[in-house]
């Protein structure tokens, strides 16, 4: 029942690394007069793992929330898998279907069991049959290591388990890109690893990922590039290697010295 789904669970991405799947060009975002994103230019290649770091309020969440239109950017272009984000609701939903998102506060649906959390969108959006959706959900729960929790409610799970359910829920839509907004910062220390392990496995399986996190171990293990943001700008981009040994900008050095 489970094995036939496994090969493509973590990614539909079969194309070669390097081809751009997300392109941000001259993106600006304002909240009233306040500029949250300034002049953002960034490309993300297929199967690339990007870690975004930066001080609080620097615009990290806003950046990834613009990519799936939870926030509307004010200037510039955002193209995801060849589709440009516009006000066209069809385009937006198309992009959201290809973009999974994991939130800091999990945002599981507390009135639904774990399995119903996972199957809701596949059934509503992709019109999968109940059986297919549940088989797939069980396979995903297996992969994130908690198949025995399928019939429980989110409130009965630990934080780490909840976040793993949230990851499974996103993956059930078979997205091409996964966005993570500080997925471990609401977790007790002993649960961080179980979530990071799932994310590392995901990255190694070839998923394209943008991860906002301060977990430098994760960045070192799987990030292809690290993006450092401050005051809405991208200040510095480079390999993890570059960041940990030889950061160029003063702000980067200051920030890294504070968190490392």
């Amino acid at each position, binding site marked *: 029942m489970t094995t036939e789904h496994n090969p493509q669970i973590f990614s539909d991405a079969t194309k070669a690394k390097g081809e751009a799947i997300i392109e941000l060009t001259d993106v600006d975002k304002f909240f009233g007069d306040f500029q949250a994103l300034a002049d953002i230019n960034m490309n993300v290649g297929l199967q690339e793992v990007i870690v975004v770091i930066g001080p609080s309020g620097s615009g990290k969440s806003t950046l990834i929330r613009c990519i*799936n*239109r*939870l926030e509307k950017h004010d200037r510039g272009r955002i193209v995801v898998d060849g589709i440009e984000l516009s006000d066209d609701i069809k385009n937006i*939903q*198309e992009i*959201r*279907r290809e*973009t*999974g*998102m994991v*939130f800091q*506060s999990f*945002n*599981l*649906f*507390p*009135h639904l*069991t774990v399995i119903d959390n996972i199957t*809701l*969108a596949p*059934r*509503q*959006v992709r*019109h*999968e*049959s*109940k059986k297919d959706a549940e088989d797939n959900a069980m396979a995903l729960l297996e992969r994130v290591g908690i198949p025995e929790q399928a*019939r*429980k*409610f*989110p*409130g*009965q799970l630990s934080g780490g388990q909840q976040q793993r359910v949230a990851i499974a*829920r*996103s993956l059930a*839509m078979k997205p091409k890109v996964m966005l993570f907004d500080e997925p471990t910062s609401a977790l007790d220390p002993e649960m961080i690893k179980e979530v990071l392990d799932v994310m590392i496995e995901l990255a190694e399986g070839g998923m394209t990922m943008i991860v906002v996190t301060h977990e430098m171990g994760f960045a070192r293990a799987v990030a292809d590039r690290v993006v450092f943001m401050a005051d809405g700008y991208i200040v510095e981009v480079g390999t993890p290697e570059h960041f940990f040994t030889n950061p160029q900008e003063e702000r980067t050095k200051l920030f890294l010295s504070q968190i490392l």
Partner: protein
Amino acid sequence: MTTTAPAPPQQTPVDWVRKNLFKNWWSGLISVILVPLIGYMAYRSLRFFFVTGQWDAVRVNLKLFMKGTFPNMQIWRLIAQMMIFALAFGIGVGTNSAASQDRAEDAGLGYERGSILQTLARMWSLVAFISLLLFFATTDDVGNFINPFLVVGGALVMAAIGYQAHRFPRRIRNVGWLLTATFLVIGFQVVSGFDAGGWVPLAIIFGGVAYGAVPVERFDSAWLRFALRLIAIAVVVLIVQAVYRAVDSPGIGWDKWSGLHLTLMVSAIAIVLAFPLGLLLALARRSTLPALRIMATVYIEVIRGVPLITLLFMGQFILGFLLPGGTVLSAITRAIAVMTLFSAAYIAEIVRGGLQALDKGQNEAGQALGMAPPPIMRRIILPQALTAVIPAMVGQFISLFKDSSLLSIIAILEFLGVRKIIHAQADFRSVAFAETLIFVAIGYWAFAFAMSRESQRLERRLRVTR
């Protein structure tokens, strides 16, 4: 465990009095004043209840309180209705407890399925009220009243039979809910009649079931899914319609209802109609379309700013001008319309409160999964928002139930209004006002209290899962 704690010192009655009534000088003073006062009032009340009260006014008119001016020859309809409602109640309780058990066991929680007796014990205020009726009714010598013990006993048996629905295998659990709804409609129509026009409620219920039951998931085309659902609904509606046309048996319209029966029915109808209307108003008020939003807001604020009694009077005198010429609505129809429109505004505000209180991360999670706004609302937002407002919602239903007594002011003889008939009788022309009032008050309380208790329980049970 070898050491035992020293036994707590035995509390004597004297200790209790000292501790609770004479803790210090001022509590002692208050006790000295209050205890005799309360004692005296209790004595007077008990004396009134058991010695001086002229309960004949209630006893003789018990049937009047229950059914008012409803035609005597048609009482069998009321009894049949009670039996069918009892059956529906039993099926509902049985299905619900089985469903809770399924959920709890899935989630690895223990669950003790209560018996129907426990359910009745929880509703002790209703049981007490019915006992009170029986107490009076057994000494009723008005004649053609079917033995009330048989009626109540029959209802209990029907409820117990219905409760067996908990044995339905899980696969067909929803059939229990369908039966509950169907029997509620049939029970209602046993009195109101199965006329050709009565098909609407069952058509809505079965149409809804058809919408959900057609296996459309396998089809990718949205149009095809839509068309299949439409066809299924049309087929079901036509069948229901055909059945009603074949039966076509008229009953007693609600303009002839009265007494407690009318009170309960008016409240139930107004609740059933006001809830979806209020829901739509709440959604309209949050709509992004300005016209819709403004209309809903104006409606809600106007209605909430006007007393119900004013609206009821307006309903009697003004509604006629607003409707196309020649439309004649009975006083009760107009009253139900007004109660519905009135309650909908309050329900809308309650729902809006629930929507606002919900964490916006829930909506975002749905959006991020690519879900469209309507399913997000239906599957994610509303279930949570409505659960959160159950206490306020039931509170609104209870006030609606009690407010239905205002109908007595516009000359409708519901539970409270029946007193007018009683005190026009030669025997009770200007006596026993207090007795009949107290009886009516107990009746309202019995229902309101049971509703409030059930809502607390429902709330507690739904909270378990979060």
